[in-house]
């Protein structure tokens, strides 16, 4: 009877999770979907607490209490700009939990699991868990600015990493064939922890959306492997959903940059070596006055804002929305063009703008907004660079050739808000800035936008 109850609660949880994620297909159904998923989680936890093997609740309750407090604090206080860091940290937590359960199972069985398949699943669980833990911690440190965001490279890096991976997998295979060695098992775990660091080291901040998705995928697959080890189906289902979600996102992110997964992981893009590419630009940049821009905006029919990560670093989301408000009041149509890799994780820019009260119906994806640029009077590029670089479309020798871009240069006029004359994350020269249609407006984005609001009001 008890077993039926537990299994039934797991079945209920699985259904709730699937329907919950299905709700994510639209902002209106997403909230209800999440409540359903939360209910499913609660059921699964209650079911688990009925488990016959549990003899003491002290540590369970202590763990649940501490975890709830930490989770709640994180959930309530983490600002939306720090969402990538928070997500990286939670990948680390999830993966670490999976690794620990795996280690505990191995230790309990004295290294002799029921059969080779179980050892295989456990090995996957522990290896993926361990490398995701340290990899995500390093990603967290990079995103938080605790360590430099630029790729860390050294000679023979890829060969060294491959060799280390080969040794780790070698031990794993040996443990499946000849089970029982504790020291070898813990060597494997240690090597996997080290490998996670080495994997993320050469990856720059601009490539973080891919890495985040990939670590998401690993953390999910580690959970699914835990499900195999414990013969727990809800774990397999939830872990697989998570794993696939991360996998699909990482493919989408790679496609949005027209790069292969191998190139992202081993290419150390944005390091000094690739930065020198690209011909010197002809012509000069045209700096424009704030009042000119204000007049242009005030008398435009359609304005498209193109925000990049620079917008988030300048905390200018609210200032953009204020400018959009005064323009809309004058009858100007305002839209936002969002590149898939704008921000530090998939969809990050959408959340930042939604937080600033931009309605989601004004946020347009790349494919939707590109046909609209020829009829756009003013395109305002804020803290974005590579995602509007026309070289990606026009210059087949460019390192970013083929990357889908927001074609702002097709609009009647372009204004680029920029901190200074520096280059983008890829270190490339951007011909957009030299086009006759483009005007440059230097300065802090938030400050410039606030002054534009005032100027438009007086125009």
């Amino acid at each position, binding site marked *: 009877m008890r077993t039926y109850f537990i299994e039934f609660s797991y079945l209920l949880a699985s259904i709730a999770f699937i329907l919950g994620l299905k709700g994510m297909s639209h902002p209106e159904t997403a909230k209800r979907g999440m409540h359903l998923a939360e209910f499913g989680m609660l059921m699964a936890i209650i079911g688990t607490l009925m488990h016959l093997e549990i003899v003491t609740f002290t540590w369970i309750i202590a763990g649940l209490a501490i975890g709830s407090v930490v989770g709640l604090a994180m959930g309530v206080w983490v600002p939306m700009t720090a*969402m990538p860091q928070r997500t990286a940290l939670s990948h680390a937590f999830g993966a670490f939990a999976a690794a620990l359960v795996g280690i505990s199972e191995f230790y309990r069985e004295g290294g002799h699991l029921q059969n080779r398949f179980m050892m295989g699943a456990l090995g996957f669980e522990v290896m993926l868990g361990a490398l995701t833990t340290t990899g995500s911690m390093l990603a967290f440190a990079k995103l938080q600015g605790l360590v430099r965001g630029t790729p860390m490279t050294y000679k023979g890096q890829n060969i060294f990493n491959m060799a280390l991976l080969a040794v780790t997998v070698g031990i794993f295979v040996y443990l499946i064939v000849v089970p029982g060695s504790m020291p070898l098992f813990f060597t494997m775990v240690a090597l996997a922890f080290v490998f996670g660091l080495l994997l993320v080291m050469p990856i720059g901040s601009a490539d973080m959306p891919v890495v985040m998705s990939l670590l998401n995928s690993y953390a999910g697959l580690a959970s699914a492997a835990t499900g195999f080890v414990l013969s727990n189906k809800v774990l397999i289902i939830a872990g697989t959903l998570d794993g696939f979600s991360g996998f699909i996102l990482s493919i989408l992110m790679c496609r949005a940059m027209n790069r292969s997964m191998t190139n992202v992981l081993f290419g150390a893009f944005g390091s000094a070596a690739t930065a020198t590419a690209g011909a010197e630009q002809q012509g000069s940049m045209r700096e424009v006055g704030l009042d000119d821009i204000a007049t242009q905006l005030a008398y435009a029919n359609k304005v498209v804002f193109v925000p990049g990560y620079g917008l988030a670093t300048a905390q200018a989301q609210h200032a953009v929305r204020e400018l959009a408000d005064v323009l809309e009041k004058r009858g100007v149509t305002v839209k936002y063009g969002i590149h898939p890799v704008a921000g530090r994780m998939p969809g990050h820019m959408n959340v930042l703008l939604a937080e600033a009260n931009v309605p989601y119906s004004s946020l347009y994806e790349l494919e939707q907004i590109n046909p609209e640029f020829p009829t756009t009077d003013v395109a305002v590029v804020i803290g974005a660079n590579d995602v509007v670089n026309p070289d990606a479309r026009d210059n087949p020798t460019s390192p970013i050739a083929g990357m889908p871009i927001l074609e702002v240069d097709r609009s009647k006029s372009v204004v680029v808000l920029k901190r200074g004359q520096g280059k983008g994350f890829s270190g490339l020269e951007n011909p957009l800035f030299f086009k006759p249609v483009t005007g440059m407006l230097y300065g802090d984005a938030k400050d410039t936008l606030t002054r534009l609001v005032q100027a438009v009001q007086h125009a």
Partner: protein
Amino acid sequence: MSADTLISALYVFVLAAFLGYQVISRVPPLLHTPLMSATNAISGISLVGSIVTAGARYNTVSTILGFIAVVCSTTNVVGGFVITDRMLKMFRRKEIVKKD
């Protein structure tokens, strides 16, 4: 794990993979960040494994590892769901935003 359990576990895995592909492909880029934090919270279901490990008193090492795992997974579950809810509340339609 007997052959039967193994086979049925594999079935569950493969079907969940197909289902995951279908469901996740329909999520618009607009909601990719909430999606990631939601799947994160959901994969905190590894909590069920951690709970048994922490409470079964197999041996001291297992209890300690299980306890840490419970803390980690609970943080993910609670934090993940709270943040997802918080984010989703921000996505509003035009008419609703105007009223504020």
